[in-house]
């Protein structure tokens, strides 16, 4: 119960910080909508649905990257991460709470982004929505972990994309697959498996990322 209370307190703090500073969500929204507008005008007329589905996933991954790059900025500014690391709570609670907050921001951006995509390109099926939700879980799990790793370095702005994008390739493969095939079951399961494997790995090893 203490663990859940710690996660709740930390996630509530992240949501409150975003409510106050409005640093992350507006930037993600603007970015994803602007990306779709650019894609809309850059794709040749009569392009296939397959190409448009690929662009959806490119936009999602880079929008997430934008949010992940901001995730640990409040902790970095005042070295607050030291204060959280010293607290007697399980350190994985910091990761889980940050992941939940990032998931909320990404989900909020997608609530706007998916209808905009449908407006500019083609309709979105339930399989794509399920794939987006599962992909968000994986993106936030891995991205938050790598964000904490990158924030301790001087090359943080460079390091996060370099570490995150290779690990996001399976998510893009699963997401595009689920969006374009007629029976997307195995791609959905693939994304769920990715979430479980990487979620457990990140949860179990986060302590080593935030301690010297």
């Amino acid at each position, binding site marked *: 119960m*203490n663990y859940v209370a710690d996660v709740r307190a930390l996630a509530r*703090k992240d949501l409150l910080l975003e409510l106050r500073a409005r640093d992350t969500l507006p930037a993600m929204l603007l970015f994803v909508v602007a990306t779709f507008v650019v894609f809309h005008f850059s794709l040749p007329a009569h392009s296939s649905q397959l190409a448009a589905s690929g662009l959806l996933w490119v936009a999602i991954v880079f929008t997430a990257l934008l949010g992940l790059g901001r995730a640990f900025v*409040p902790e970095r*500014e*005042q*070295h607050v991460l030291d*204060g959280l*690391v010293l607290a*007697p709570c399980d350190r994985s609670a910091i990761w889980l709470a940050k992941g939940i907050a990032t998931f909320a921001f990404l989900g909020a951006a997608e609530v706007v982004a998916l209808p905009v995509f449908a407006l500019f390109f083609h309709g979105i099926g339930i399989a794509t929505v399920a794939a987006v939700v599962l992909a968000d879980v994986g993106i936030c799990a891995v991205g938050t972990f790598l964000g904490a790793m990158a924030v301790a370095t001087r090359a943080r702005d460079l390091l996060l994309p370099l570490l995150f994008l290779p690990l996001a390739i399976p998510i893009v493969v699963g997401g595009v697959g689920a969006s374009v095939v007629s029976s997307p079951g195995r791609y959905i399961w693939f994304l769920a498996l990715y979430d479980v494997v990487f979620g457990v790995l990140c949860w179990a090893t986060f302590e080593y990322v935030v301690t*010297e």
Partner: protein
Amino acid sequence: MIRARKLGKRFGDKRVLRGLDFDLAPGGFAVVTGPNGCGKTTLLRICAGLAVPSEGTIDVDAPRAAIGYLAHDPLVYRELTALENLDLYGRLYRVPERRERIGMLLERFGLWDARHQRVASYSRGMTQRLALCRVLLHGPELLVLDEPYSALDAAGAELLDAQLDELHGDKTLLVSTHDPGRVAPFATAQIALA
């Protein structure tokens, strides 16, 4: 409470601590002095558990929940109010009667009227007072204070004097300062770094 033997720390080629031995008994008050860059902050971070030594050993006989660490930075969120920051730490440290304890500390350090203001609007001295509230919130047995008088005005420094007077003998304190005379009445040991 703390036992260090042949303690050393290096960052790449740069060595900031070398062969340091000291003991700090429970209830002791050690003052860490030395010029800029001699490793005072590094030593305090090692004692707080935020850094590991490159050489030697250190035994700190206090769990994380019993350590209060005052850093150069206040370790509070600028976009949250004083009350929200202390409430977060109070929850994480499972402070009993959290609200009463927070209220008492904010009153004591003269921040009660500013409790609903965001820390971003605080002066440096007010932020340092809030950092002291954060450190004392969970009633730690071991207090590791890095330049606690930094940015405090005369009234704030007197408040801290009174607080240290109340704590010394009962709690264990490791305090780094450029003004050892200020804490001389409480000190039981001095660690002079070169």
